[in-house]
């Protein structure tokens, strides 16, 4: 049977070693099935590389290449250059975590985009270096606890802000860039399909909770991811050539505290009075996102409630109402 006719590709097949509730495993499984079989994946070092390949074992049913941490985008550039002029060129896709995107991989990513390679770069953002044991990254949000941004007598967690990566990406004026979330599969699906319908450099930033690093229940990953969107902390937007062209409207913005209280990495903010100030800072950041992207009044086809109610492929489906979240 031609692999393209299969009911489900299972590009990332079962038996891998991700933690239960791993947002990155969920996201990668969703994304790579949508990509189809005619791809070559280049993976940065990180959890996804570690839990999917082990000795001679591999969970990948598509061609997959890992080199080192910093260079995934540049390796992909080489793979893509090799495809040019071929009869049936494979599409090139990069997968990296936030360390491999925001920090150590940023230079190679910028080069990939600047040179206009035909490649899709996917960042699975779990907001810290999880593979090495939860150290802060440029993506770690303000006030979050990591092993290298610990709360203490003189600290309320990470003192800096989460890097505004999308603004950096937007400054490259590339054909397509979008944020997505494991909690909004239909939206994620539409964005992957849109990205794959275009050529040139494209970027997908997918919010992927880490139960281990964020210290929440494994079963709560989707709920946490949903609240990140619904609070305005992680807006779902689309950019074309640097301009915002799509926004997921918030049906009813939720208070940031609701999101923070689910996660142990913010627990210290609720133990002492001085934490309350950081909670206000985080709420202000969410409010700024809401204003910046017009998350309350954007003229979009669906909002967070409608997107959450979309039946999944007509089989079972999922329905989420505010009652489910409390």
């Amino acid at each position, binding site marked *: 049977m031609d692999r393209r006719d299969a009911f489900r590709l299972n590009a990332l097949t079962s038996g891998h070693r991700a933690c239960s509730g791993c947002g990155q495993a969920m996201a990668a499984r969703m994304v790579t099935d949508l990509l189809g079989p005619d791809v070559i994946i280049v993976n940065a070092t990180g959890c996804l590389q570690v839990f999917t390949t082990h000795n001679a074992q591999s969970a990948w049913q598509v061609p997959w290449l890992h080199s080192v941490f910093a260079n995934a985008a540049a390796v992909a550039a080489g793979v893509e250059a*090799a495809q040019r002029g071929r009869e049936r060129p494979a599409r090139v896709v990069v997968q990296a975590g936030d360390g491999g995107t925001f920090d150590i991989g940023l230079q190679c990513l910028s080069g990939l985009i600047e040179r206009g390679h035909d490649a899709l770069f996917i960042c699975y953002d779990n907001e810290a270096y999880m593979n090495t044991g939860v150290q802060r990254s440029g993506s770690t949000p303000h006030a979050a606890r990591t092993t290298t941004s610990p709360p203490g007598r003189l600290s309320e967690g990470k003192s800096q802000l989460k890097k505004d990566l999308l603004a950096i990406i937007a400054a490259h004026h590339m054909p397509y860039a979008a944020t997505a979330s494991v909690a909004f599969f239909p939206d994620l699906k539409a964005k992957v399909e849109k990205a794959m319908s275009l050529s040139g450099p494209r970027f997908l930033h997918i919010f992927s909770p880490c139960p281990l690093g964020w210290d929440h229940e494994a079963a709560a990953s989707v709920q946490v991811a949903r609240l990140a969107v619904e609070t305005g902390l992680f807006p779902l937007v689309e950019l074309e050539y640097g301009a915002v062209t799509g926004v997921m409207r918030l049906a009813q913005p939720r208070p940031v505290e609701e999101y923070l209280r689910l996660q142990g990495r913010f627990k210290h903010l609720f133990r002492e009075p001085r934490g309350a100030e950081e909670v206000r800072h985080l709420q202000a950041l969410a409010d700024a996102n809401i204003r910046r992207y017009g998350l309350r009044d954007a003229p979009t086809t669906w909002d967070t409630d409608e997107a959450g109610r979309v039946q999944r492929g007509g089989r079972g489906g999922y329905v989420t109402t505010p009652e489910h979240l409390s």
Partner: protein
Amino acid sequence: MKRQIEGSQAVAEAVRLCRPQVIAAYPITPQTHIVERLAQMVADGDLVAEYVSTESELAAASVVLGAVAAGARAYTASASQGLLLMTEVLFNIAGLRLPVVMTCANRAVGAPINIFNDQQDSLSLRDAGWIQLYVESNQEAVDTLIQAYRIAEACELPVMVCMDGFYLTHTVESVDLPDQAQVDAYLPPMHFARTLDPAAPSTLGGGSEPDNYLEYRQAHHRALERALVEIETAAMSFADLFGRAHGALLDSYCTEDAERILVTVGSAMGAVRDVVDALRARGERVGALRLRCLRPFPTAALVQALQGARRVAVLEKAISVGLGGIIVTEVRAALHHAGVRVPVDGFVGGLGGRDLTPDSIAAVFAASAAAGAAPIDCCFVDAAEDPPSPPPASPVKEPLHGPS
């Protein structure tokens, strides 16, 4: 066809003749003329290849890694700081057993920053798992580059062709450039069996563990050992087809009856040959041996070539600071292991572009001849008596801000 041509341009012509499909480049002196010439060839349509101008040497090495993993013949070049910035990826290319070919235009490594020639850069990467070939002339640089693709693709190992910066890269000399049909006959189209292909998905670069990593490294070592044969074969077939030879693993000069042999690497051999001629004219039985291949280390051939000598000196353009010469240490180890008890004197010179003149080389021969039973450990050729240590900071004549 013979042409008066700069070394870098000659190498670019050789690259073109090997029909690379992907070229990755990042500028660094003294490598730049090679990739500039390649860019012009692509711009003029004389070379059909994807030319990727990367944002760093780390990316350039990564681009050729990706291209070769996807089945394309690829080329890059670098030197000095650039080569060291590539280091992580160069180890990775070798571990993945990818047949990448690159040129190193040998240059000193800072600090203090210095753009001129020595071989500290590539010798610092001798443990990276690459085949390393060092050339003496621009003709040899051209011929070795063509051989390098054949060796790399036959062995599934990367090859670094090292040529001295400026002394070769920026020097115009007469070079016989082969024609395309000859090169095509010598070098078959690239076929990489482990090419990433959606029709036959495979995983390349997955994790390993204590229970198999050791065996991967062992296999890598064995592959390099086996490559000795392929390097010799490539040189012999090249000589058959093109009528030129530069040695294979070694290149010896007047060693057959030599009592004292000077071992060196790279372009310094040209002046060494002249000094050997002059000393022989005075009746001294001296010879010279050039290591063309440093990795894999040609232990057996080296022992064979040196075992008749009464004294050996090694003159090299790099140092393992805190130990002494790098190559001298390896030569001593090879001879010792083979039970050949010949004293080996160590000379480090030519660093950072200091000329190794015929007089300097004659002084090396003389010092080695005059030394007693104990070998000279590490002598710095032509070094000032009182070197500055550490490098002095530039004096600030006018303070930027007045006293507060």
